[in-house]
């Protein structure tokens, strides 16, 4: 049975009082006094019950070697190094960990993430009282989209990327409305705009490709020689693109945009890419230069600003947009 929030707080105080024996005599009176200082009105009987509970082995207690020394009339640990704080965390440490947990819950919703979260919660459970989620709200909140289709393959894909195992899966193309069997040598799993993609060498296309996890069916590991990726290509995919679906296999190139006053403000605050350079004009409009590999997602972004953002260069990309419909750039 889990230890209640209040009992946990009292146990922490008892542990603190016994551990601080060099400063104050760890008596029942002292424990009750510290409890009252911390706003906990408690009786001798309750503290006695808490001490008995602390003596119990985990998980019902803490296995605390507490002994009452009748001669000195004080409590002590027979093992002077014992503390229920297995890891000594300051309140600040605990606070940082608690906030990190929120991020982990949001960003690593995989088996690996669950293990990490459990491990951190264990650490926290020895340092702070049980968190009552019904009474608390997070002070740090990231966007938490509902779990998407295909997320269940995350652990398998991460394992295949890490160990180097080719996979076979069925892919459904939303655009072409066709299924296709794919053999992929996966290199990385990447998130973009709350969507997850696996990137690698596709034997079926004889090229490097990204596949949305939501469009993958029944991935299986293959007993087949793994084709290792070229780090330069993988890093380029990770760093030189806004999005995952490139429109060219070339090296990063300058992409010039023209932004109106309002869009300039937003894009100055939230740059599109690390390479972004904003050259402001007198009236607050700007020329924005990015150095990257053009992608479908970049086109979608430009279109999302309507007249606020216009593509100026390269010419081939301007022409491409002119000659295609809006749906051609849907992922």
């Amino acid at each position, binding site marked *: 049975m889990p230890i209640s929030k209040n009992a946990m707080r009292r146990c922490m105080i008892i542990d603190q009082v016994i551990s601080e024996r060099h400063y104050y005599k760890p008596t029942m009176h002292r424990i009750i006094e510290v409890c009252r200082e911390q706003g906990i009105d408690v009786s001798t009987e309750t503290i006695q019950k808490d001490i008995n509970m602390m003596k119990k082995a985990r998980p019902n207690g803490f296995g605390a070697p507490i002994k009452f020394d009748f001669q000195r009339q004080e409590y002590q640990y027979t093992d002077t190094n014992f503390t229920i704080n297995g890891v000594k965390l300051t309140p600040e440490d605990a606070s940082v960990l608690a906030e990190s947990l929120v991020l982990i819950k949001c960003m690593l919703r995989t088996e690996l993430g669950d293990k990490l979260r459990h491990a951190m919660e264990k650490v926290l459970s020895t340092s702070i009282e049980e968190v009552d989620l019904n009474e608390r709200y997070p002070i740090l909140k990231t966007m938490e989209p509902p779990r998407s289709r295909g997320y269940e393959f995350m652990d398998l894909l991460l394992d295949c990327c890490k160990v180097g195992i080719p996979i076979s899966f069925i892919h*459904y193309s939303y655009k072409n409305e*066709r*299924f296709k*069997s794919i*053999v992929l040598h996966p290199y990385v799993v990447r998130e973009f705009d709350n969507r997850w993609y696996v990137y690698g060498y596709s034997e079926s296309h004889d090229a490097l490709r990204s596949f949305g996890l939501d469009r993958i069916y*029944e991935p*299986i590991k293959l*007993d*087949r020689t793994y084709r290792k990726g070229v780090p330069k290509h993988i890093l380029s995919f990770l760093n030189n693109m806004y999005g995952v679906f490139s429109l060219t296999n070339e090296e990063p190139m300058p992409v010039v945009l023209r932004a109106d006053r309002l869009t300039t403000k937003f894009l100055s605050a939230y740059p599109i890419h690390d390479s972004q350079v904003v050259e402001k004009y007198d009236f607050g409009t700007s020329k924005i230069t990015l150095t990257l590999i053009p992608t479908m997602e970049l086109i979608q972004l430009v279109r999302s600003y309507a007249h606020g953002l216009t593509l100026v260069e390269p010419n081939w990309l301007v022409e491409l947009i002119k000659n295609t419909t809006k749906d051609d750039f849907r992922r």
Partner: protein
Amino acid sequence: MTLEDKTLVWHVNAHRFNLQLLRVMLNERTTRLDFGYQTTDYYIRGGWINIYPETHLVTSVSSRKIRMQDQQGIVTAPDKFHFKSRADWHFFSLFFAPLPVQDQTISLVESEDPDYTNFNIGNIELKIEAAFRLRL
């Protein structure tokens, strides 16, 4: 040749209208066929699909009919899986008794007397040499 613990995997692209046979997997316990189905404009809201319980495989190396044992993602007749639009798609798998482990051509037979709606797909070539091996 024996399969031992190996599962053979073939990528195929056989189709009948808007039904695609995409992958065949074979081990000593089962033969699995993976399918994709795309609805069309022909039916209102995409229509429905199901599979006859008497569906079987026919192989070029045996006169024996290899009966369907199980299915995943599709219901057997008379039940129906109804689509909701003309743009829906569906992935499903059918499981049969194990095929002989040798080069062969197989056919999926849903009906011996098929009409255009039946899931009958013929001449699926399975060569041992062309198969991938599943990693356990």
